[in-house]
């Protein structure tokens, strides 16, 4: 069995009682590119963290064998010593250091603490040639694009004498040309004896380079495919990825859809940092009164960016296009304008963008509707308590009292506070970005019920979610979004996990052909 490079057996990892990985087996052969696919939250990243020593030995069950040798890693350094190097989606480069400095960071070419710069630079140049990066090794990382930074990461891995390279969504931020270059590099490295594990959502890329595929869903291995034995078929992968039983997890709703209230036309926005990149490209959509509209797409597809750019231009630069409400164009330049035009946006990252964690429940709830409980800018504190109590019980926030700090609430209750804040602001259109991320099933159901109540009152909801069953269970209509564009529109009837995935892939294919 000399051919087996890495074997993970029966890996089980729990977080506070929630099973993230359920006796996962993974076998990676020598000199292969092994793809791991699965939906967001399926457990791919957790598995890789177990492998690279981020989750230390003993914090999970199961065994890891690398080249036939049993391993127990206590930190990333341990796994790196054996030649296992992970490159995360968010690159770990220091922007204001040179390429050479980054490559040897923590691994400096030095004698007694004094860096030998000549040695470093010539070594770095050799590594850059190997990965096909045509840049001087003294260039600052900050001044090269993401695609090239990715190559610097690989060069850094090579400098550590890598045997097994793990790449987490390496092409998510790259354009097609850069992606191709990267994938070809992986194939080259394979020939030189380096095995890779590739985590990706882009099935066309996987089809192109992967020798073997492991499909993970809900923390379990669902499928193993090998190029030599099986026909690797995107449809099959998709089915394995998403095909789960959908039990009745969603409260029923009698939809009562009225006139169109909200329309976005030719909405184009540029990236705030790379100001000549179109991040949102000519997006058109509409929402009717009493309708729940879904935004489906993979992570990084641009759903959040579209929502935030509409919400008072809080994302991106050089906005163009029209936003119409009741067939009249509306204009706004900041969030408070958007709120006063009846738009609300509840963020996907409630801790960073949604809540003032050190403030109490009441102050968080009322933050966006202070005007309603004030007179001439003076807050009526009794009115504030009364209103907050009202919403607290309406939303069933479980807490010791309104004075409790939001910080100390559970995720589900924090999310209810965020939703409560926006419901209090009484918007006509509520955009919910990942409203159920990281919260338990019971709280999810309560939030779904809340959404149903809102649309029953004649409000409209846009729901962004990476959990497809949730979108399918809740939405009247779904827009499929990929790479900042709308790839398709599906009615509740047409929509299925397969049709959404197909929509994304067809669009990606169209783009790479064009």
């Amino acid at each position: 069995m000399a051919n087996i490079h890495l074997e993970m057996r029966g890996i089980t990892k729990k977080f506070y009682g929630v099973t993230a990985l359920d006796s996962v087996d993974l076998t990676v052969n020598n000199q292969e590119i092994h793809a791991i696919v699965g939906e967001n939250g399926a457990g791919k990243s957790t598995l890789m963290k177990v492998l690279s020593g981020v989750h230390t030995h003993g914090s999970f069950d199961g065994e890891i064998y690398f080249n036939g040798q049993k391993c127990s890693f206590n930190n990333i350094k341990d796994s790196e010593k054996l030649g296992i190097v992970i490159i995360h989606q968010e690159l770990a480069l220091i922007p204001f250091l040179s390429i050479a400095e980054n490559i040897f960071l923590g691994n400096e070419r030095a004698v007694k603490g004094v860096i030998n710069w000549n040695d470093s630079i010539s070594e770095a140049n050799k590594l850059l040639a190997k990965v096909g990066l045509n840049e001087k090794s003294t260039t600052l990382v900050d001044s090269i694009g993401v695609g090239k930074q990715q190559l610097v990461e690989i060069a850094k891995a090579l400098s550590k004498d890598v045997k097994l390279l793990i790449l987490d969504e390496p092409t998510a931020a790259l354009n097609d040309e850069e992606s191709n270059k990267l994938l070809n590099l992986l194939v080259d490295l394979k020939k030189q004896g380096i095995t890779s594990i590739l985590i990706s959502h882009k099935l066309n890329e996987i089809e192109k380079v992967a020798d073997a595929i492991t499909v993970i869903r809900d923390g379990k291995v669902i499928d193993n495919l090998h190029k030599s034995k099986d026909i690797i078929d995107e449809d099959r992968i998709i089915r394995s990825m998403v095909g789960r039983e959908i039990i009745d997890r969603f409260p029923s709703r009698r939809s009562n859809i009225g006139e169109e209230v909200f329309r976005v036309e030719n909405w184009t926005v540029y990236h705030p940092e790379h100001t000549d990149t179109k991040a949102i490209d000519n997006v058109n959509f509409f929402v009717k009164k009493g309708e729940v509209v879904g935004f489906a797409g993979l992570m990084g597809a641009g759903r959040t960016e579209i929502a935030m750019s509409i919400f008072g231009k809080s994302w991106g630069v050089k906005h163009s296009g029209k936003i119409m409400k009741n067939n009249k164009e509306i204009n706004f330049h900041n969030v408070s304008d958007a709120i006063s035009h009846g738009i609300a946006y509840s963020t996907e990252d409630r801790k960073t963008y949604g809540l003032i964690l050190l403030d109490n429940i009441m102050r968080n709830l009322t933050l966006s509707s202070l005007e309603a409980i004030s007179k001439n800018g003076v807050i009526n504190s009794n009115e504030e308590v009364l209103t907050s109590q009202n919403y607290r019980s309406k939303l069933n926030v479980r807490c010791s009292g309104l004075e409790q700090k939001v910080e100390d609430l559970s995720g589900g209750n924090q999310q209810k506070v965020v939703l409560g804040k926006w419901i209090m602001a009484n918007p006509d259109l509520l955009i919910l970005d990942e409203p159920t991320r990281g919260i338990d099933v019971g709280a999810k159901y309560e939030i779904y019920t809340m959404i149903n109540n809102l649309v029953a009152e004649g409000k409209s909801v846009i729901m962004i979610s990476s959990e497809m069953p949730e979108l399918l269970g809740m939405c009247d209509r779904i827009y499929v979004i990929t790479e900042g564009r709308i790839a398709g529109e599906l009615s509740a009837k047409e929509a299925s996990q397969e049709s959404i995935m197909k929509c994304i892939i067809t669009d990606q294919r169209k783009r790479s052909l064009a």
Partner: protein
Amino acid sequence: MTGLKSYFKNNIRQYGMIIALVFIMVLFQILTNGILLKPMNITNLVLQNAYVLILAVGMLLAIITGNIDLSVGSIVALVGALSAVMMVTLKMPVVFAVGLSLLIGLAAGSFQGLFIAYFKLPPFIVTLAGMLVFRGLTMVILKGQTLAPFPKSFQAIAAGYLPGREKEAILGLTVAAITAIIIGILMSIIYILFELNSRKNKINYGFEVLPKSFEFFKWSIIIITINAFTISLAAYNGIPIVLILLLVIIIIYTFISQKTIAGRHIYALGGNSKAAKLSGVKTKRVMFWVYANMGVLSAVTGLIVAGRLNAATPKAGNMFELDAIAACFIGGASASGGIGTVVGAVIGGLVMGVLNNGMSILGVSVDWQQVIKGLVLLGAVCFDVYTKNKSGSK
């Protein structure tokens, strides 16, 4: 009784600070053989510390946003110098010069606010630059010399008392003394009416109120404190004009920070600026006004300092920013923003003031005073962080 319990739990920070202040006062009262709380010394405490208390109020707002303002001492000096030029050299009317001085403070603060809020430069750097620029301008204007004396009416604002010190009214008391006592009684009545009204409103809304006996206890302590204070002022020269100014500023800023939308927005910005922005808080505007406001309060302080010294000097206001910052942190403000109260900052300023004054009476050298003040600051913040962690871990 659950109401009382949660009341203490939520106000433990405030009470902790008040207890610390009382403790320090009692300690120095004993160590100084009763000199600390003599009427003359109490008046001195007010006059000596008005500057740091006013600055601390403005600084608190900057600290709530998670930043600091290093330029206040220099603005104090600059405004002092310009007011001297206007009143001493150009012989402008006092009212006009005072108004213009406040506008200069507003301009200086707005200038910094512009760079901080709209050009997004770090406040530390902008106000460090301001500290150098305004101090330098002061030197240029004064050419390194002292400008004096100010008109009498201007001096009175900073060093004067309510009138009637010479006239005897009844029982051997002067008119000024009677005025002080009456003001104390009036303040007590206003306070009680205010408390009764807010209690009535709460009951009308059907909210839980604190037990009556506890409320009475609290009110009587506050009334006794107010009247003891005004009576001891009466026993010396009556009510200093600066005290009235100081109280008005404290009340206005407590109101703004606790009761208005603007105040709430400052706290929200400091607690989490990204979330505040996405909740509709105009974060740039808030930031701008916090620094513009600091400029105005620095100008007020600049006038008081100049009036009290009866001179504008190039070194005026040196290190005042650090006193104000220390007062805020001793008073329970958080360096990472979002937490702190005006009253807390005032108590923090008083703790420092009493320490200064008490140690001076005891004859502790200025060098050792600095050491002790530094340790008190360190200890207060340490205590704060420790209690916060403890309550957080529950």
